[in-house]
């Protein structure tokens, strides 16, 4: 029997893994915190989320069509959906619809397809969009609302919500509410120290559960942690990036808090507020834009943590996850160039190992 298969070498068996499977697991891990966020912020959040994800898909399809690449396999790989999804989670839940549209276009076209599509982008697409939006539309990106759970008294109904997302954003003024980090920053800049600034602010338990003002999917530290643990268990991400990143922020926060407790909030506040949790488990761990070696990942994550703390404490922005991740993304190629695993049978410098004790067993 003649065998007619293309000549391509083995292995002729494969782990049951694929890119779309990987992406589906990440989406599954995001599901709890997303569902909670959508519930917590009601219909406007649902609209914004839908618009953002749909735009991401359409932008991806259009880009592929323009680049004359096959559309179906790349759309089905789920990466565009995930980018839109992650972007939506970082947006203020009651932001107008065009914020989602512009954001998704920025993420997919500028953040990803311009670099060559899947796997080629240097920067995390969702963070590119987030930062671009924050700089271009600071008002819309910093207007947060207190939780308005779905079907709860006082929450907008379906029709009212359409008006919130697709109408004019002006009427938000009456109900807007600052995030914890934003509040601290404002208070500190007005010369009010933390002992007073933290009065009437959400408690740590509240931050843990997430029943507070914030971005759509960043409020509940606990649910993000649950999703992150799922990814760790599935070995889709390694423990190094989240652990090193959170630890760096926690250590810095503790040191600074001990030095000046009235100016620097303690580690718990840092860890549980803002987008740090989501960033540590879902954004900094983005496979494409993070280093490939263990040591490189540690360095990268420590860098992220450091930058986040610096930006949060001493810059003009109350939150710095997006900036920190983008800056470290830029360093990823450099980290990968300099940090490589030790090759079997070689020293760290790449020379063949020499055993000093027995010299060599070669007979002379």
């Amino acid at each position, binding site marked *: 029997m003649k065998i007619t298969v293309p*000549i391509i*070498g083995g292995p002729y068996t494969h782990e049951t893994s694929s890119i*779309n499977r990987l992406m*589906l697991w990440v989406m599954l891990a995001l599901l709890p915190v997303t569902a909670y966020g959508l519930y917590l912020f009601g219909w406007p959040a649902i609209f914004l989320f839908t618009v953002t994800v749909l735009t991401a898909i359409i932008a991806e399809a259009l880009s592929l069509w323009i680049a004359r690449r*096959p559309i179906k396999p790349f759309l*089905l790989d789920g990466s565009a959906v995930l980018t839109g999804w992650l972007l939506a989670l970082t947006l203020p839940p009651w932001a107008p619809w065009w914020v989602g549209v512009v954001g998704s276009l920025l993420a997919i076209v500028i953040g990803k397809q311009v670099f060559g599509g899947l796997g080629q982008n240097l920067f995390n697409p969702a963070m590119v969009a987030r930062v671009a939006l924050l700089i271009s539309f600071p008002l819309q990106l910093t207007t947060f609302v207190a939780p308005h759970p779905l079907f709860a008294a006082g929450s907008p109904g379906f029709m009212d919500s359409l008006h919130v997302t697709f109408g004019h954003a002006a009427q938000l003024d009456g109900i807007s509410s600052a995030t914890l980090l934003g509040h601290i920053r404002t208070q500190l800049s007005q010369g009010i120290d933390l002992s007073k600034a933290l009065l009437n602010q959400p408690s740590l338990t509240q931050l843990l559960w997430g029943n507070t003002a914030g971005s759509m999917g960043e409020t509940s530290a606990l649910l993000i942690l649950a999703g992150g643990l799922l990814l760790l268990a599935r070995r889709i991400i390694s423990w190094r990036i989240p652990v090193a990143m959170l630890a760096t922020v926690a250590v810095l926060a503790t040191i600074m808090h001990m030095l000046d407790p009235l100016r620097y909030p303690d580690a718990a506040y840092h860890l549980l507020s803002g987008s740090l949790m989501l960033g540590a488990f879902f954004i900094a761990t983005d496979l494409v834009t993070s280093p490939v070696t263990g040591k490189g990942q540690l360095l990268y994550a420590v860098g992220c943590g450091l930058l986040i703390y610096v930006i949060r404490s001493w810059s003009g922005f109350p939150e710095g996850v997006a900036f920190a991740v983008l800056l470290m993304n830029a360093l990823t190629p450099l980290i990968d160039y300099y940090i490589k695993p030790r090759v079997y049978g070689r020293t760290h410098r790449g020379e063949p190992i020499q055993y000093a004790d027995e010299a060599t067993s070669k007979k002379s």
Partner: protein
Amino acid sequence: MLAAITSLTILGIALGYLLGLASRYLKVEGNPLQAEIEELLPGSQCGQCGYPGCTAAADAIANSQAEITICPPGGLALVEKLASKLGVSIDLSSVEDKAPMVAFVNEALCIGCTKCFKQCPTDALAGGPKQIHTVISDACTGCEKCVDICPTECVAMRPVPITLQDWHWPKPDAVVVTQVSVV
């Protein structure tokens, strides 16, 4: 104002004079690159590139008058070396690596005229007058000089047969996605 103009003018003249002197006394004789490139070329003076020999070809390459891909016997490996020597980036995947060819004498037609082995730059053709010639394929660079000179058209170029010893796995196709099923 005047001081500035004067000082700048003087500075300009002085530096220009220095440059002029430097170009006269520190002049580089010949092009060192040409010699280095010639070292890399096959050196069989076959003339397939269209230049009368490897020296001329090296000169042309060094002066950017010829592409670095002009040398067929050098193949892809040579292109790569020249690219790194000259610091030009070239998309190697676009350069077609021609299968190496060697001359082959059809012994039924050969009349033993010796014209071919007078032409051969590497003495790859063996045989004497009135004897049938054969090609030592290990020494043949595939320059085709013998093909045109043969009066009986008995020399032909053939691809070097692939043996088990020099077979290797082909390059896996570049990323081409034809179909994919979900999950």
